[in-house]
């Protein structure tokens, strides 16, 4: 890997230098819309534009050191670029890559929506104050509602999930606004400083509720299964990785405002409850996408516990690494799993019966992903869970950790069941459709990354340090 390009030589010194990734995405978005003007544009061209935009954004992130004075410096206004933001942005954009690579709609709108959503996440990451945070959040969510309406899996009732998602999102954002108002009423500014007095606390709590809604913690989780079940698998993969990572980042920003506030204290409990709820429900599901939805709910719970542990330890930079590592590993696992559903076209659990005999390679990749999701040691999933539990144990959150560990054990129940169906049963039908090149390549990438992250972690540790430094 070539060393970082010295910021001075590359980044033009005008203040927006740090916003290059977001700008690239915006340019990509505009290029997409412009391409739409021309009458007969091919899906491949749109795809190339989208993927290039994302890759260039990631490349820029990796190689522009964080600009000095990133902490809400003068003239930068609402923009603040710390290493945490830059690291998580990598997650957002890499999470969108599979969906961008898989889109083959005839018009350019879905690609534009995806880029718009990524732009929103970029803004969220670069937000210097609560207002910018809100704008990023909305800019991310609105395209998502439309994407859910547009990219539907076969047999899903039209628009039902999109309507549910829209109204829930709208109520949640209005809750956030109310919290913002209270925060402003108490502190007089939109900055990330904690607002004094009960009104400020209430404001923070409401904003926290909005964040927990976006992650789908237990009381606010009901929309997630319906949306993931009715959206196309690639979109579900995008939402379960990028949007969930953005929501986690959003929660981290809020928790960092007041590390020992009521919100941070209830986070571990909400997380453990979500993990257990997700695991228990997933055991019962017959539909594969709904099962993976509840499994992503369970993983979201563990992420919330991780944020809770981070907050309990005073939100210092070093202990943010496990959350990031979990997000990174989960990104590969979840995207890979949903991609397999896209590739295999399996809907219910019986569709998987004997799949290994029909197409051994995707089955093997899916098995590796499932083992990683379940957290079996040689895979990355185990290492991620271990670090998160480690931090939680250090922070003294014993019962939430026990709940999350129990959820991991229950998780075995449904992950192994899928492997069992694939490998131990006889195939009911003999058709094995051909697999498109792009899908298989991404599936291979996700599976190999998820499996090897556990075995060769020191390869990634240099990458982690550089990012989190």
């Amino acid at each position, binding site marked *: 890997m070539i060393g970082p390009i010295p910021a001075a030589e590359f980044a033009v010194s005008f203040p927006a230098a740090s916003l290059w990734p977001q700008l690239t995405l915006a340019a990509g978005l505009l290029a997409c819309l412009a391409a739409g003007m021309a009458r007969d544009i091919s899906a491949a061209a749109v795809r190339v534009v989208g993927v290039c935009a994302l890759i260039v954004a990631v490349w820029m992130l990796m190689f522009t050191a964080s600009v000095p004075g990133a902490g809400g410096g003068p003239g930068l206004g609402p923009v603040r670029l710390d290493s945490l933001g830059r690291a998580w942005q990598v997650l957002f954009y890499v999470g969108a890559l599979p969906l961008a690579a898989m889109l083959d709609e005839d018009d350019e709108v879905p690609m534009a929506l995806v880029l718009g959503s990524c732009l929103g996440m970029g803004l969220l990451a670069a937000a210097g104050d609560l207002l910018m945070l809100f704008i990023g959040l909305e800019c991310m969510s609105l395209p998502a509602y439309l994407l859910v309406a547009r990219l539907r899996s076969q047999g899903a009732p039209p628009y039902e999930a999109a309507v549910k998602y829209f109204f829930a999102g709208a109520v949640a954002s209005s809750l956030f606004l109310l919290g913002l108002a209270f925060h402003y009423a108490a502190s007089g500014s939109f900055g990330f400083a904690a607002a004094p007095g009960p009104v400020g606390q209430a404001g923070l709590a409401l904003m926290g509720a909005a964040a927990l809604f976006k992650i789908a913690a237990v009381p606010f989780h009901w929309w997630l299964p319906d949306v993931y079940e009715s959206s196309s698998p690639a979109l579900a993969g995008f939402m379960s990785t990028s949007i969930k990572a953005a929501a986690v980042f959003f929660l981290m920003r809020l928790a960092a405002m007041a590390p020992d506030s009521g919100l941070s204290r209830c986070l571990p409990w909400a997380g453990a409850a979500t993990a257990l709820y997700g695991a228990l429900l997933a055991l019962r599901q017959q539909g594969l996408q709904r099962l993976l939805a509840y499994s992503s709910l369970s993983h979201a719970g563990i992420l919330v516990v991780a944020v809770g542990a981070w907050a309990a330890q005073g939100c210092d930079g070093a202990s943010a690494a496990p959350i990031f590592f979990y997000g990174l590993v989960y990104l590969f696992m979840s995207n890979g799993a949903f991609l397999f559903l896209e590739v295999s076209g399996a809907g219910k659990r019986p569709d998987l019966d004997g799949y290994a005999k029909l197409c*051994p390679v995707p089955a093997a990749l899916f098995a590796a992903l499932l*083992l990683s999701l379940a957290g*079996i*040691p*040689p895979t990355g999933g*185990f290492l991620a869970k*271990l670090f998160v*539990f*480690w931090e939680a*144990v*250090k922070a003294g959150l014993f019962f939430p950790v026990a709940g999350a*560990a129990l959820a*991991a*054990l229950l998780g*075995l*129940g449904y992950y*192994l*069941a899928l*492997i*069992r169906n694939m*490998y*131990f*049963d006889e195939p009911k039908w003999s058709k094995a459709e051909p697999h498109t090149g792009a899908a298989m390549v991404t599936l291979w990438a996700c599976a190999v990354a998820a499996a090897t992250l*556990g075995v060769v*972690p*020191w390869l990634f*540790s240099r990458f982690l340090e550089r990012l989190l430094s």
Partner: protein
Amino acid sequence: MILTALWLLPAIGGFACLAGRGRASRWLALAFSVVVFGYSVWLAGPYETGQGPWGLSEAGSAWIFGISYNLALDGLALSLVWLTAFLTVVCVIASWRSEFSRGYWSSFLFLEAALMGVFLSRDLFVFYVFWEAVLIPMFFIIGIWGSDGRRHAAMKFFLFTFFGSLFLLVGLLALVSWNHATRGVWTWDMGALAAPGGLAGLLVFAGIFVGFGVKIPLFPLHTWLPDAHTEAPAAGSVMLAGVMLKMGVFGFVRVLLPMFPELTWKLLPWIAGLACVNIIYGSLCAMWQSDLKRLIAYSSVAHLGFCVLGIFSGTPAGVAGGCLQLLNHGLTTGALFMMVGFLYERSHRRGLADFGDLVGRAPWLTFFFGWAVMASVGLPGLNGFVGEFMSLAGMAEALPVMACIGAVGIVLSVAYSLPAYQAVFWAASAEGSASAKVSDLDLREKALLWVLCLAMLYIGLAPGALLGLLEPTVATLVPPGCMP
């Protein structure tokens, strides 16, 4: 690098087998397993020249949280490495005839790689990763190529063992964090960790004990064993009983005993009692079984009770006997399961009532099965007796009462194995029985069984070589005169 090669080679072999077609991967598997066996035997050379308690050690790169990839080899580890390599070769040859897909052969090589990792690792984290990695290949071996009840057995095996190793993980985490709290240094190295005293120490001890106990299996945690053994294919049962049950006891010897010396001495009556229960309970359950494989599975529960009895006795004879019994049980039960596999291969049945007067039809099978039964019953002159006698002699020095209760096991072992032997080989065959389909052993099977049976006789009459190998391990665990 020489120790890493020990587990890396089979892993590469596993991937290679995946690449080859059905027949080619069978030959690849044989080649790799023989090479690994040769390599492990060659290792004895450098092992002799090594000094200090560890014959061979290899320090790898350190990583975060004090985890460092250290490997080491002492007497017990070397003997278990030999057993693993030898049994893998035996399994590949034993399942040569039946048409298995390439996944079968690669699973065995992956299993061997993971087992080598467990026996070699000096770092608790690396030990735990390999400890869990063993589950995956065995899960597929039982699940895909097992007999009719395989789906349930594979799931039960995985969930049960994973549940046990969650306890182990929590115990290890607590141990390492306690060490960091008191001594300020992050380390997962087995040698460097010290055990907490008082209640915390007891809780950590209990967690690790349960984690290893599931694998042995100790009494309350054993119900996964009969299903897994019955449904696994013949070679799978050989590896399961031959080596995987030893991981638990190896864990005791490598992790628990060095770290909790005074606690093991205080809890000795309880653990010895549990081992005796293991022996008697396993034998009584074996008496009731009507399926040959379940019977041998429960007999493994009884035999490993002797190992635990020996190892926790805290006397040189007991510990050496316990370690030796690990190897003996591997050979004896491996041979028994292989022969039941041959029977199942020919008749697809393994009930006691399904066969009859095989003396006439398969005299060689009767001869070898009788030999293996006598070894498992602990007939002096064969390997079973040496391990059991030394374990009981060791325990007699520590707790004579427990030794006497344990010794009852030798009567019970006859009570369940000989009637079964007679029902299958001597008794008259009922009309619906499958003994008509049973043909005698062919040259390949006879050669395998001759090697195993002569090994049993050799260890039975001249265990000196192996006991010499185990000497350093025993010396570290039981420094002369340490037993209060």
